[in-house]
């Protein structure tokens, strides 16, 4: 949504004024104390934020160790989740597979479309359409994930089986697109719903970058007689490449951690199903939501352990995306 995009600040705002040290009021006056207290307060809340992040990592690790120490299976390779049994046997292999596959499907569907929409808003749309459309995309981001889930499970799933039979007819021989004709509550459907959900963030960040392409680059290409597509290919896309990559990674972070939409749409199982169109599989977040109510103490800790894995993965993905954005900012400043 809005806060995820970075509006380029006006140039004069890049350097906040330094406090004129000692020039305001006399030494040791209330003024000085006020300044110290206020800056301490703001600094304190900044540090609170860091402490919360550290605490999340610490507490999740603490509970995870508790669960992993009694786990009789291999946490990474066991294809089962019997954390409430005695002895507990659980592993994240199926969850990792489902999380990665559904997110990859979501990315494959969403990124091209999002780049298309971003280009549409920044370069193609009639001006009257561009602004409302950007607004509609923002609204798309505001719809709660549980509503996407409800829509996905009760509306989209019944409408997809026709499409899946079609895919089965032509691509069923690959095994990946085999379809038996049950309710389409599968990883592929999850991927479609996730794609719709991450569309806004990928679109917004990409559009932001496309709008920053120096006007001179585009005009130079136009002056050489380029068509609109050639302008985009020669000046807009190369300039925006790293932005699109980081936008996709932000979208990936969302898709990996999405809980409710997956929990409502997917019909889970602890088997890795070679066909993506048939029900089965699971994701980290979905498994936590589905298993929490029946979990005992160890079961709860085991779910926290899988949450820790999810936390680390999203941390890496999001951190990577932010680093790419930050680096891009540094060297694009010169010609922007």
């Amino acid at each position, binding site marked *: 949504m809005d806060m995820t995009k970075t509006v380029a600040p006006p140039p004069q705002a890049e350097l906040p004024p330094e406090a004129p040290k000692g020039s305001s009021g006399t030494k040791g006056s209330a003024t000085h104390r006020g300044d110290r207290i206020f800056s301490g307060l703001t600094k304190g809340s900044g540090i609170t934020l860091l402490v919360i992040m550290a*605490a999340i990592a610490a507490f999740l690790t603490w509970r995870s160790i508790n669960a992993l120490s009694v786990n009789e299976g291999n946490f990474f390779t066991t294809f089962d989740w019997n954390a409430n049994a005695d002895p507990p046997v659980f592993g994240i292999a199926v969850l990792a597979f489902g999380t990665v596959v559904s997110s990859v499907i979501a990315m494959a569907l969403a990124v091209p479309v999002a780049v*298309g929409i971003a280009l549409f808003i920044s370069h193609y749309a009639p001006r009257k359409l561009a602004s409302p459309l950007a607004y509609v995309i*923002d609204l798309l981001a505001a*719809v709660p994930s549980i509503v996407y889930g409800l829509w996905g*499970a009760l509306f989209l799933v019944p409408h997809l089986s026709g499409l899946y039979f079609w895919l089965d007819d032509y691509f069923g021989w690959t095994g990946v697109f085999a379809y038996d004709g049950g309710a389409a509550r599968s990883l592929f459907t999850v991927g479609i719903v996730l794609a719709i959900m991450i569309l806004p963030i990928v679109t917004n960040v990409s559009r932001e970058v496309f709008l920053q392409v120096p006007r001179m680059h585009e005009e130079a290409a136009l002056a050489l007689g380029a068509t*609109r597509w050639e302008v985009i290919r020669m000046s807009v896309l190369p300039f925006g490449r790293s932005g699109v990559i980081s936008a996709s990674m932000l979208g990936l972070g969302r898709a990996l951690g999405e809980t409710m939409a997956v*929990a409502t749409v997917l019909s889970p199982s602890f088997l890795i199903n070679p066909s993506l169109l048939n029900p089965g599989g699971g994701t980290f977040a979905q498994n936590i*939501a589905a298993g929490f109510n029946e979990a005992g103490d160890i079961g709860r800790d085991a779910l926290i352990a899988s949450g820790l894995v999810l936390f680390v993965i999203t941390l890496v993905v999001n951190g990577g995306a932010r680093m790419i954005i930050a680096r891009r900012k540094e060297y694009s400043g010169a010609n922007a």
Partner: protein
Amino acid sequence: MSHAVMDQRPQDAVGPRPATLRQARLPRWAPLGIALGSAALAIATGVLADLQSRAQWGLIAALLFVATTFALTTAVEGVRQAKDRLATSLVWVCFLAAVVPLASLVWETVARGAEMFDLYFLTHSMSGLRDLQPGGGVYHSLIGTLQQVGLATLIAAPLGLLTAVYLVEYGKGKLAKAVTFFVDVMTGIPSIVAGLFVLSFWIILLDFGYSGWAGAMALAILMMPIVVRSTEEMLKLVPNELREASLALGVPKWRTILKVVLPTSIGGITTGVMLAVARIAGETAPIMLLVFGASSINNNPFEGPQDSLPYFIWTQFKAGNQYAYDRAWAAALVLIALVMLLNLLARGIARWKAPKAGH
């Protein structure tokens, strides 16, 4: 904010003229004509071949449109123009691909939600009703959502605001860089992970029970980075001349911030906070782990399980009978209306109190 961005767009649309005037061109109505033609053909195919899924019809139409455009333009205008038209038609298809699901989602929610939605639904709880029975309402969930989101805002808004002030007005060096980076990373924390953290800290370690307050803490973690980000952007828009003028008059920095910088940007800050509220109002996962859900009214967020709108949708969906589905859709309608109302209000405030960015 999006309007400020849109304004960077050059006034004149990028529309290259043909290289020479003699070159053959498709008539102006060609794209529209091809689009209508392929839509008609797709519908005909769909009806004749008896394809049940409308998604298939749409796919056929899109493929036909893109292919026909490319073929026709190659024949008439040449390969370079054909590629250009291909890109244009693909971009239009992308645009439609995004609008169709949104329209369908809004339509389904309104149409199916309207069946149950009335004043009775808003003012009654599910107390004493079993999932299989008709009737009931969301009053208890509405109370829960409002209290939890309110508490979360009370924690997250001041902390986020102060952090943003630190980053823009004071922050230098490694600490500020670390805070900026982790604020960014924090926006990407899955909501269920925030829920698990509060679970292990508040419920497992400190041994408190399920309550609205526990949920509010998790929501605050999700809300804080959003508030920081948006407030930061707003503070950066305050012209430096204002700060300098105030400092030159001998006003101390903290008073400058409180009396000049914050009032100037208060509209944008309010917008950011409201958008953040809209975002967390729809979170289900932390509520599921920490508030536990209830079917009767609990007015005390600090004691005992509560319900919330998104969690209500989830439990009714799980119940899985027609009455429950009706309630789920109606609750979804209430939730979407609430979120959209917050969004519209926030944007209204943003437009009304937009800071004039310097020159």
